[in-house]
């Protein structure tokens, strides 16, 4: 194992535990991890933008392929920076207009295609047996349920009609469909989230092995001890009542 991998394992295990300590409460370890994370991610973004956008998408096409019109984009980008100069900051609106206009225009036909046509098309199913199928099988029943669900949910979303009479009944049914959707969506996602947790714990277990010098275990012990010291210090420095109320936002714990 190379030293870079070994150090990497210790760093990764340490940062993982720092972030997990947030589950206990806001504490200096988490705050350090959080701020480090913001700094690193910002630094990473800057480097990526420099190489992938500024060099690859702007400098190379303009300087080497002669695509001078990319300079218009650069100009629009510079216009946004006029926001630093209040007197001419209105120039940034020109760029906003391009971005927002383009975004709204691109959206319409694509929304119609994938969110209206494809959804309506999926709903238009025969409710009674197709040729060769039983007259009223499971498929037909499901098609009917889907139709009822789509329609009642849509009715629920009517804004300018008062919900009373049959509209109210339909909207109520729509609400039940929505609730099933939310419940099922929640239940369905639990597995994916747990997979991530398992993946993370897998790494910690790996780093706890002898090959990595028991990194996870050592660091876990250190962090637990650190948290203990921090709790003792903060409860000694502030009166208990205030501490309970403002746990986690304790000014004395600041670096």
């Amino acid at each position: 194992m190379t030293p870079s991998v070994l150090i990497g394992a210790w760093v990764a295990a340490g940062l993982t535990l720092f972030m997990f300590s947030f589950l206990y409460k806001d504490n200096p370890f988490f705050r350090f991890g959080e701020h480090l994370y913001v700094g690193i991610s910002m630094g990473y973004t800057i480097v990526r933008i420099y190489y992938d956008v500024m060099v690859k998408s702007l400098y190379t096409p303009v300087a080497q392929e002669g695509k001078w019109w990319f300079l218009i984009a650069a100009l629009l980008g510079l216009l946004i920076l006029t926001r630093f100069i209040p007197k001419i900051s209105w120039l940034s609106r020109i760029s906003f207009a391009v971005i927002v206009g383009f975004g709204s225009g691109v959206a319409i036909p694509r929304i119609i295609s994938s969110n209206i046509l494809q959804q309506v098309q999926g709903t238009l199913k025969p409710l009674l047996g197709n040729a060769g199928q039983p007259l009223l099988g499971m498929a037909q029943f499901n098609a009917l349920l889907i139709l009822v669900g789509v329609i009642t949910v849509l009715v629920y979303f009517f804004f300018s009609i008062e919900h009373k009479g049959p509209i109210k009944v339909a909207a109520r049914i729509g609400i039940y469909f929505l609730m099933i959707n939310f419940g099922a969506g929640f239940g369905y996602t639990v597995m994916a989230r747990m997979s991530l947790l398992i993946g993370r714990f897998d790494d910690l277990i790996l780093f706890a092995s002898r090959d990595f010098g028991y990194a996870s275990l050592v660091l876990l012990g250190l962090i637990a001890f650190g948290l203990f010291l921090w709790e003792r210090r903060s409860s000694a420095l502030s009166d208990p009542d205030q501490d309970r109320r403002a746990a986690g936002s304790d000014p004395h714990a600041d670096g």
Partner: protein
Amino acid sequence: MTLFLRRTFPLLLTFLFGVAAALQYYIPHPLSEAALTEISVWLRIILGFAMILGIASLCHVHYAKIRTRAAGWGYSLVVYLSMLATVAVGLWSRGQEEGTGFGWIYTYALLALQGTMFSILGFFVASAAFRAFRARSKEAAVLLVAALIVMFGRVPLGEYLIPAAGPLAGWILNVLNTAARRGIIIGISLGGIATSIKIIFGIERSYLGGRD
């Protein structure tokens, strides 16, 4: 003239770009495809420049904290140092990630931090479920039952205990869930289209801010 530049010209641009972008979808000509790709590169370039605004804002916030020695200013120092260090290593590595220090930061710091934040969701789904899934009303009961069945049917043990749970969960997901999702999606689409149209026609212009 300045009023035109300040107000009308941006609205005109919005209209032109909006209509052009909408019509592009119906034009199969390679030119239109190329234009779309080109504009998306433009947007990336604009965003690249705009990021300077973001960096300035971030630096400003943390600089203010350090200068006034506000509570926790040491952490602001951490932001500065880690950002500068990452940029320095990234430039040193020429943006390459394979086998460089930059790649090391990515793998052992960024991925670990990201993976951990993401995995905290595993804990949060549990605590959110505990708090929210109470049969206070008929609606809440429906929500609760749907969630329970799907959770039960998704894992091997549940399916082993009650073999019907798997197919039942599948049915809820594929039929009842699909129905409601379709309704939501169609509703969202109409809301989105209406917003788009208002923007293109200059009816919604708050994103331009200012009065002049």
